[in-house]
């Protein structure tokens, strides 16, 4: 594991559940993060972004009136977006494959399945640090390149997302374990397509 010092990073937590915000904030502080700002919904968060130079956003999916996906799309494609490139970690209990793909297609960098742990959150932050991705504007999509792995030595067939998901393997925590839901490992495999 590479040790990174996160003390200079600014985090924005967007969640309508104050208990969840408190949990994420406590974990970030324990990881050495000093600057954490909270917002209770997507609209508030968008306002905060005008004066808060967030380096990473940890955003819940289920919020109202503006949900997590709406917020991500606003950040990515809004004409008045203060920071369309900011890395976003989508934090949610939705771990069904179609939901994961929906989040990916809205422009999130990482997907973190609840219930969360310090190790899982840090692994997503580390992934953002170690894998800076170019942005792509393609049709209606604007966001981080959805094909993150670029292996120049790969000569095999192009696997598609459904294959990736089924090949993702079990274990690794996350997910509620119901049929059709993915573990965190499977989600990572899917997003690494």
């Amino acid at each position: 594991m590479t040790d990174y010092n996160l003390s200079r990073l600014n985090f924005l937590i967007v969640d309508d559940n104050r208990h969840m915000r408190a949990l994420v904030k406590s974990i970030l502080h324990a990881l050495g993060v000093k600057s954490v700002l909270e917002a209770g919904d997507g609209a508030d968060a968008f306002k905060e972004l005008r004066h808060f130079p967030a380096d990473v956003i940890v955003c819940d999916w289920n919020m109202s009136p503006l949900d997590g996906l709406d917020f991500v799309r606003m950040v990515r494609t809004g004409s008045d977006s203060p920071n369309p490139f900011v890395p976003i970690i989508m934090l949610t209990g939705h771990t069904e494959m179609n939901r994961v793909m929906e989040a990916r297609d809205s422009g999130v960098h990482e997907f973190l399945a609840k219930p969360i742990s310090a190790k899982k959150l840090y692994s997503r932050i580390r992934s953002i640090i170690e894998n800076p991705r170019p942005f792509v504007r393609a049709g209606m999509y604007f966001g981080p390149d959805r094909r993150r792995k670029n292996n120049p030595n790969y000569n095999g067939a192009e696997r598609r997302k459904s294959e990736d998901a089924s090949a993702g393997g079990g274990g690794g925590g996350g997910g509620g374990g119901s049929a059709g839901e993915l573990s965190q490992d499977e989600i990572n495999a899917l997003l690494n397509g």
Partner: protein
Amino acid sequence: MSDQQKPAASSQIIRPPQTLQSKVEKGGPGAVDLDALARAEEVIASLADDYLKWVRDDFVRLEAAFAKMKAGEGSDKENLEALFQISHDMKGQGGSFGYDLMTAIGDHLCRLLETLDKAGPREQGMIRVHIDAMRVVITKELKGDGGNEGRQLLMGLSLVGEKAK
């Protein structure tokens, strides 16, 4: 219009500024090592008492939403959505604090609510048993998978979920 005049159909690649990477240092004092991660997990564990208070608050909200539905106030769609939002929160938090059974029951309730498009007496009965199962976890402070009691609860809820399909 010639092909050259058409708007570009191909994607445009943009290299964003690496502001985040420039602010992160490797190693040194304050870097996240295994000890820091262990400390962070300890911080979560220390919030377990707070969690019990949080989940009781959520449970009160869940009961209130159920009572509203039972009283016929508001539309079924609104009431089912309100119950989903609360149970989804409860599902998302339990496991972080060692209450995996709460997460599992919350998951069952969310799956059930997703299949329902009305909230008559039969559906209310199905939802009720999930709420009662959550009450058992809270009052008995059942951590982990809840042992035999937890397995029996989940087995019962699975049967209820099957009936809803």
